């Protein structure tokens, strides 16, 4: 019974995260300036979003790039193959600002709705 409750709670948090993960990624990119995939995962983990996998992050970055919110560049280092770095575009910053405002308003409404 306890296990079921814990799993249900994790599912709920997972659903919440799905709706705002793109904003968290944009915010992490703004914080970092630019980052490659693993760097972004670390930045997100430092912000409290632990447990994210590469299998979730890269398709999301691909969608953000398709939408023009993120751009990427291949950077060749001193050793090893080139690595892709991601940057936030102006449209991405605008989307983040709008998302922050929307999230703030939504969180306030939910807090009110959830009060006993």
């Amino acid at each position: 019974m306890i296990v079921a409750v814990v799993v249900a709670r994790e599912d709920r948090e997972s659903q919440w995260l799905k709706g705002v993960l793109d904003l968290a990624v944009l915010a992490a990119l703004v914080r970092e300036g630019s980052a490659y995939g693993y760097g972004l995962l670390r930045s997100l983990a430092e912000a409290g979003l632990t447990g994210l996998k590469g299998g979730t992050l890269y398709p999301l970055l691909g969608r953000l790039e398709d939408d023009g919110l993120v751009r990427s560049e291949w950077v060749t280092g001193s050793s090893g193959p080139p690595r892709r770095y991601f940057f936030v575009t102006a449209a991405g910053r605008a989307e983040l600002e709008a998302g922050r405002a929307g999230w703030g308003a939504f969180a306030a409404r939910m807090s009110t709705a959830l009060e006993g």
Partner: protein
Amino acid sequence: MTGRGDGIRPRPDAAAAYGAMLAEQLRQGGLAEPRVRVVVADLLDHVRTTGEDPVQAFGQPADYARAWVRPLSRWRVLGRAVATAVGAVGMFAAVTAFFRGGSWSARMSVTIGDLVVLAVFALGAGVLPWTLELWLGHRAARRVGRRPRVPDVVIRAGVMLLVLGLLFTVFTAFDPEVWEPVVLGPPRPVVFVVGMVVAAVLSMVRQPRSPALPRLPGTPERWWERTPGRPGRRRR
């Protein structure tokens, strides 16, 4: 900028094998080759950096591919199987017409036996790759790190034996005279030209198995590597 991750490094050949399987699934789904290179390069870079097991970080290749492309529908599989079969028949007809001795102005005699052989060839060239091979590819891409209960080679051998057994049964069930009547007499140049034109269909159909690891992003694509596919827009 963040540094390199810690952890046990996966075997490079294991990451490459995973990348090749992922590339095959993405190509099957119609993702354009430049985009396939980017997706696989991101994966390999991530695995190299973090030392994570690719299956733990990305899931099985078939599942991860679904984040980028829709799986092939039955109708698309059927369409590609038919196109492959038609193209293979065209190539077979063109080669037969070219190497047939005698005058080019003569007509070719096509018997019932020839048509049956052609039908079997079409089935073998079009249906087996888009059924058996497609399934074997999916099976492998869902079982990375796990040994299959029945190896691919055993399944292939079993299917080949079944097909050969069916053919033997069909050909021995009838009197040899049944196969001899001539049913068509097309001019040889027409068979050659039409066969060549129809064979060109093959160049427009992606083949079901293409497990090669893509080259690094940014490297120019050679003309023979260009395969039809969507330019890279993915499912949402």
